[in-house]
């Protein structure tokens, strides 16, 4: 049974429809990447899965429950955590405090989980009492991901995790994503560095103008010349 199963999702802002019926699924333990030209609806798809944007039609099932009508804060405890592209940390809180806020909904003591996060991200452990606003771009991105992992989600949604990072740091972030995935967390991400992202993904989707145009395994999509044509509109 797929972990996430979306069918015929339509969504948009105001009277402008961005997604015109998108089907998408993520199986347990998968890394799935959505790529596509600007304005194709990638972020909107993420947001309608998380509940920040309300789907106007279609069904979204997560872990055996139908969620498209739920409020965003009800979806989080189901095991669905989201890292926005920007403004994804609390800048005046320390790293430890950021993690505590990530685990706000947990009722147990957080120390154990925080220690696990510091094991996963040794860079953050060194700076545990630094304010998140003082972190560099790459560390901040790790901070944001670690914050989202505090609730031990089944599915982690990442919106452009490498935006604004240097090529070296990009590699680090992709490595981090693979490490997280190795612990059994499924990942759905939107990425601009299509080639690199697809090379670490099990599967990928190419969105254009609010529709899924291509779907394939990661490596095969990465080598598909049709993808480039979709970006430049010359099919």
């Amino acid at each position, binding site marked *: 049974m797929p972990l996430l199963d979306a069918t015929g999702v339509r969504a948009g802002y105001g009277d402008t429809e961005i997604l015109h019926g998108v089907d998408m699924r993520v199986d347990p333990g998968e890394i799935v990447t959505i790529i596509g030209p600007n304005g194709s609806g990638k972020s909107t798809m993420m947001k309608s899965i998380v509940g920040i944007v309300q789907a106007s039609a279609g069904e979204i099932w997560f872990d055996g429950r139908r969620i498209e009508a739920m409020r965003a804060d009800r979806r989080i405890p189901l095991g669905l955590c989201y890292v926005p592209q920007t403004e994804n940390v609390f800048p005046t809180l320390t790293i430890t405090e950021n993690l505590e806020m*990530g685990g706000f909904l947990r009722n147990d003591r957080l120390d154990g989980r925080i220690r696990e996060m510091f094991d996963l991200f040794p860079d953050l452990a060194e700076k545990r009492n630094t304010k998140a606003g003082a972190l560099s771009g790459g560390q901040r991105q790790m901070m944001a991901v670690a914050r989202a992992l505090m609730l031990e989600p089944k599915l982690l949604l990442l919106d452009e995790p490498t935006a604004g990072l240097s090529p070296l740091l990009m590699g680090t972030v992709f490595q981090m994503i693979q490490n997280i995935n190795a612990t059994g967390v499924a990942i759905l991400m939107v990425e601009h560095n299509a080639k690199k992202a697809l090379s670490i993904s099990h599967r990928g989707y190419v969105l254009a103008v609010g529709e899924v145009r291509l779907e394939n395994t990661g490596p095969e999509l990465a080598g598909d010349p049709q993808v480039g044509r979709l970006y430049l509109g010359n099919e």
Partner: protein
Amino acid sequence: MFITARTMRSPAVVRASRVAQAVLAVVFVVLALSEIGLAVNGIFLGSILALGAVGITLVFGVMRFANIAHGDMMTMGAYVAFFLLVSVLPEHTGLGPFTFGFPLLIAIPVSMAAVAALAVGMDVFVFRRLRLHRANIVTIEIASLGIAIAIRGFIQMIWDTPVRYFPNEGRQHFSLPADISIAPNHLFVSGAALVLAIALHLLLTRTKQGKAMRATSDNPDLARASGINTDRVLLWTWGIAGALAGAAGVLLVIFNATSQLKPTIGFQLLVPLFAAVVVGGIGNPYGAFLGAMLIGVSMEVSTAWALPTYKPAIAFTVMVIVLLFRPRGLLGSKG
């Protein structure tokens, strides 16, 4: 974001501005040291301002508006204490070196609770509804103005306008070298303010609810996405701001040599309070504390050469000077 784009400064201007800031800081320190007695008084005044300013800045942090009713919330705290001292609690004055008696120690927490309840009520009955209507910030601000008038009207309805006094007994001063004389009440005021400030600091840094308050102030969307109930955070914030305002109101009365109160005492402090908030950097509670001390000392030291009644104008002038050099205040980060 577009409008502020033309604020880039050349290196020479930046350097000149740094020099001017350093000169101003030195002038401030020299003036304060030359009138050390007044400066010490300024710290006492500053501690009351701090209690009020921290509340204003906390509310600003989560709601993004400057609460005009804050001064009158302080007044409310003072009158609640007055009611308790005169009508409910046993009469007692002259606790140790202080002009007041032990009943005040009971009255302070009760006033804090009462004003906290008032503040929470303001949010539930007025501000939450305005948020639901997606009213803009200034509309919310005008509503706080309406509440300010209503609170004052309520106080005048119940207690009328003449000056009232807390039960009090003649006072002595502790004299220290360098012309410093300290009224015992002032020590109490500062001590109480310090205790409350430390309690607030611990709340904000050690408790889950306090951290959630700071998180909501930092990034409300991400707070919601982390499962934090931001509506409840707002209530907490109002409650804490109200409690601090209640305490500040009571302390304001015993800070005064004759323990007098009237329906305008809180409102009259609004300009210095806003000045403290702005000087410290809007939204930053530690900045508000620092700003309050700076404003308090400036106000008291100014009485060496200006009429004491000009103190609010001095507070305002200091604010304008600080803003000229640091548009976001001393510790401000939010735009």
